[in-house]
């Protein structure tokens, strides 16, 4: 189980080393090495999982199946991209005196801790430890968000810390309830929070308790995902944090939080019903999609624009999971991947623009194509991908979700069809039509808002005093790779990824 | 019958003799905590004796209400005291009224005191009366709620029954949570009703802060003595209520002389302990501003409400 150990050890040691190292080049070297180890370990795990199926390791502490491996893949890919981007971004921050050279190692330390917490949250077997790890991501990132130490970033950091901590606390109550219900069914209490054990006894767990637990967990981790109405920290944090951090937040942390919800959801599905969890997920999904689409339209700040676009895409993925079935779930998972790639790319571009134009106002940014041709290309591509246009893979995943929605509708909301209860029937023909229409309308609104703003930024002549050339740096490499991946994935999913996705889908769909 | 009469007389004697001692004890504790020697704990007896010997002076503007009030206050408080078990659980006067009667006997005294404060027509009296009216109107609901919580958990409104039942159960109440809420609520109410810090300060004659003292500012001589004695009686009533309803350990459950002797001693110890606690509170906390009193009594009210709530949720 060397690869599992490497997965945890790499960021841990890298973080420790970063604390004692001060030279920038060395810090980057440590970072890239640890990411390389991480990715190698992931590849080994992927092949192991694909060959032998799910396995546990380290005394039942670690549980890896197709779903967690898939999430690991996203962490590794986006993490690696971020590391390359940081190479040019952080050095420039130091060179321009925005970040003191002495604080650079703190940045890397926190970055590694953030990575570590996310890896642990993904691979761990116990839902309780998963909670601890997800709370740890909050703690690691709160100083990263406020890294610039301006008033705005302090404000954003405080909001993030308080809102996420409280949200996460509610999730802990859900975990307590889950444990409470498992105590009846399990003989070995010490294993009472392990996913492997819970899945075995899932249909014997008490549905009342599980329903309550799921609501708490959905609201709790939903805060981290940034689902409406728990999203208010998200645009602030995404605006204020340094670009590589935002890329990680938007690309990976959201995915890990969704993963925590999905893990819980499978257990609850066994005990309660698919319609209960699906209805709730779809409800939050639609709330996020519609609200975010509206805010995208009125946005004047390009970082906030992308932040709301994150909320929108998480909403779409949630709708996919809520509708369920093989198609919806597959679409949802695939959409998580596509969004992670497209959004980290978008924030790389946003970071470059911010460094050049020194503003986050869309109105003051013009002619990026002239000033920064590479960045303009990245911005356009990510914008198109985020609008889910062909030939990008996000088009494929969004169409999958929409098709699932149109064919199955939303599961009936949590009131069952007993007399005197309100039933929101959204799975009959009319209901299906209505929810699909809402979905498509919101997607089109978001597309319009996003592309209108982005084209306005890309074309035109840059303001006076803006440098009109862009030299190739290593920071451009991840952008090219991510863009390439988005295009390739739309027509050809590499077999390992496809298998992971398919197996993860079967894990999530309860027949 | 004869036994009942003797018991009533005994209870009256105990209440009347113990109550000034409690006031003296609070003052002593306070003094000690402030590193003063303080007056003897028996000083209030001397004060009362002195006041009874003095000739009262009556303002020419006062009406009959002013002269009759001290007697009404004293009598109503003493009657209220007879409804509360002190050293024996089966109170001889328990036929005369229950826990609700107790509340309204005390309210009767407050009502007349407020009238008397207004009667003399002095500025301070009126101010004290209006403040007392505010405090009383806020304590009333809190007290009623906490008392209901007690009555419901014990299944009776009769104080003797409540105390007797719990005493026979070795003092273990059936449900601790509602009792605890009611206790906390009743303690706050007791502080407010007996004019203690942090609601009122009995040791001051500063016009900005006084409530009870302002109302009785015009009194002198034996009238003042009666009112002071009634105030200390009221304190004794509340302390007995708290001590015996929530911790009826050691109270005499039969009329056997030995049990009653122990009962009296335990009663003394319990009320003295409570008085010490009050003395400590007076040292540790500052008096609240009048408009903050609502906060504290709001707490008392909510606690009473919670007591009731706990009772109902636990029953169902």
């Amino acid at each position, binding site marked *: 189980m060397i690869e599992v150990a490497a997965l945890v050890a790499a960021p841990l040691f890298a973080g420790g080393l970063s604390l004692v190292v001060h030279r920038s080049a060395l810090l980057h070297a440590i970072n890239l090495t640890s990411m390389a180890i991480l990715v190698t370990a992931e590849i080994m795990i992927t092949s192991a999982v694909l060959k032998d199926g799910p396995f546990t390791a380290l005394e039942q502490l670690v549980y890896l199946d197709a779903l967690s491996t898939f999430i690991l893949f996203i962490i590794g890919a986006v993490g690696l991209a971020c590391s390359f981007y940081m190479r040019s971004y952080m050095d420039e921050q130091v060179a321009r005196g925005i970040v003191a050279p002495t604080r650079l190692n703190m940045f890397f330390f926190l970055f590694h801790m953030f990575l570590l917490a996310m890896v642990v949250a993904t691979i761990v077997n116990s839902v309780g*430890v998963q*909670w*601890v790890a997800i709370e740890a991501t909050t703690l690691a990132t709160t100083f990263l968000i406020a890294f610039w130490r301006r008033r705005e970033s302090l404000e954003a950091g405080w909001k993030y810390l308080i809102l996420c901590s409280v949200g996460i606390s509610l999730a802990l109550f859900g975990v307590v309830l889950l*444990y*409470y219900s498992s105590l*009846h069914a399990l003989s070995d209490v010490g294993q009472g929070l392990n996913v492997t054990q819970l899945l075995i006894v899932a249909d014997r767990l008490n549905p009342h308790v599980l329903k309550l637990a799921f609501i708490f967990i959905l609201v709790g981790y939903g805060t981290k995902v940034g689902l409406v109405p728990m999203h208010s920290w998200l645009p602030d944090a995404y605006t204020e944090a340094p670009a590589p951090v935002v890329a990680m937040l938007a690309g990976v942390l959201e995915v890990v939080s969704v993963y925590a919800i999905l893990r819980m959801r499978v257990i609850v599905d066994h005990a309660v019903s698919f319609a209960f969890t699906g209805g709730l997920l779809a409800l939050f999904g639609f709330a996020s999609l519609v609200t975010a689409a509206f805010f995208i339209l009125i946005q004047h700040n390009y970082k906030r624009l992308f932040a709301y676009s994150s909320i929108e895409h998480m909403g779409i993925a949630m709708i996919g999971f809520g509708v369920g079935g093989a198609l919806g779930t597959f679409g949802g998972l695939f959409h998580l991947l596509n969004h992670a790639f497209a959004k980290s790319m978008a924030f790389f571009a946003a970071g470059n623009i911010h460094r050049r134009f020194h503003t986050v106002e869309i109105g003051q940014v013009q002619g990026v194509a002239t000033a920064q041709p590479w960045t303009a290309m990245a911005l356009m591509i990510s914008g198109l991908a985020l609008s889910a246009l062909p030939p990008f893979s996000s088009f494929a995943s969004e169409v999958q979700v929409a098709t699932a929605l149109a064919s199955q509708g939303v599961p009936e909301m949590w009131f069952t069809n007993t007399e005197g209860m309100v039933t929101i029937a959204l799975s009959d023909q009319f209901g299906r039509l209505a929810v699909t229409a809402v979905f498509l309308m919101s997607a089109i609104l978001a597309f319009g808002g996003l592309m209108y703003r982005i084209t306005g930024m890309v074309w035109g002549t840059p303001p006076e005093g803006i440098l009109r050339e862009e030299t190739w740096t290593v920071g451009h490499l991840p952008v090219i790779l991510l863009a390439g991946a988005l295009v390739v994935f739309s027509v050809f999913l590499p077999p390992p990824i496809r298998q992971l996705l398919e197996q993860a889908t079967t894990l999530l769909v309860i027949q | 019958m004869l036994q009942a009469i003797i018991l009533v007389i005994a209870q009256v004697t105990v209440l009347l003799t113990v109550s000034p001692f409690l006031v003296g004890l609070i003052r002593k504790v306070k003094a000690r905590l402030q590193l003063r020697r303080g007056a003897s704990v028996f000083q209030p007896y001397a004060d009362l004796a002195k006041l009874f010997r003095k000739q009262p002076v009556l303002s020419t503007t006062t009406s009959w209400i002013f002269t009759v009030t001290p007697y009404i206050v004293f009598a109503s408080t003493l009657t209220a005291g007879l409804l509360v078990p002190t050293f024996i659980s089966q109170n001889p006067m328990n036929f005369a009224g229950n826990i609700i009667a107790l509340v309204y006997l005390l309210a009767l005294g407050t009502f007349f005191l407020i009238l008397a404060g207004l009667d003399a027509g002095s500025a301070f009296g009126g101010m004290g009366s209006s403040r007392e009216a505010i405090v009383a109107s806020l304590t009333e609901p809190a007290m009623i709620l906490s008392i209901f919580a007690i009555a419901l958990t014990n299944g009776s409104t009769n104080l003797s029954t409540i105390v007797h039942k719990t005493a026979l159960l070795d003092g273990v109440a059936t449900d601790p949570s509602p009792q605890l809420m009611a206790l906390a609520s009743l303690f706050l109410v007791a502080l407010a009703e007996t004019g203690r810090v942090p609601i009122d300060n009995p040791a001051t004659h500063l016009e900005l802060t006084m409530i009870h003292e302002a109302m009785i500012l015009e009194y002198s001589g034996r009238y003042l003595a009666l009112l002071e004695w009634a105030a200390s009686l009221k304190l004794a009533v509340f302390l007995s209520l708290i001590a015996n309803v929530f911790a009826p350990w050691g109270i005499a459950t039969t009329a056997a002389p030995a049990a009653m002797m122990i009962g009296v001693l335990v009663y003394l110890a319990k009320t003295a302990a409570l008085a010490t606690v009050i003395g400590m509170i007076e040292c540790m906390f500052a008096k609240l501003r009048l408009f903050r009193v609502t906060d504290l009594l709001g*707490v008392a009210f909510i606690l009473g409400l919670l007591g009731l709530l*706990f009772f109902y*949720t636990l029953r169902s």
Partner: protein
Amino acid sequence: MQVLSYSGSQLVDLCSALLLLTCFAIVAQRRLSACVDLFALQSAFLVVTAALVAYLTGNQHIYIAAVLTGVIKVIIIPRVLKKVIDRLNVKRELVMYVNVPAGLLICGGLVMLAFFISEPIIPLGFLLTRDSLAIALAIVLIGFFTMIARQKAVTQLVGFLVLENGLFLGATAATYGMPLIVELGVFFDVLIATLIAGIYTNRLQDAFDSVDTNRLTVLKE
């Protein structure tokens, strides 16, 4: 799991009720340092509850949790918060979004809500007590409310810690403690969160000259 004696469960009940009682005191208290003291008191009650549960159920690892609660929540965190308060220029909460009596009424309502929510799941447990889980939920909700109703960063933090106490009470009284590794992790997280929030409060004080969180209005739509 053995069947517990009647009076033992009553004691746990009593302790949980005491925790709830301190919650109300915190809601009614305006002075920042007194809020911190009350939080320490509440944590002390929590230690007693956890020790009681450990004794009654014979689960040794709850003792560890109790000791940790004592060290972290009764000693370390209050000290950290006191230090933070010492640096501030404001010692008491002057303006609240909800005044004290209304706040207390709302909290009373929250307690009812908590009982209402947990009613369907209470009877099925081999629960130590009937109402500990409901009280835990009530404390969580009141902590939540405190965070919303107060403006000062420190009192918001106290609200968060109260919320955590409620969670811990729920975990102890309803499930006889979580697996040890989870509990340790939770303690670690809470401690770090408090330290971070303490540092933040100081930085907010420096940057905004105030710890009123309603001054944090630079970022908005």
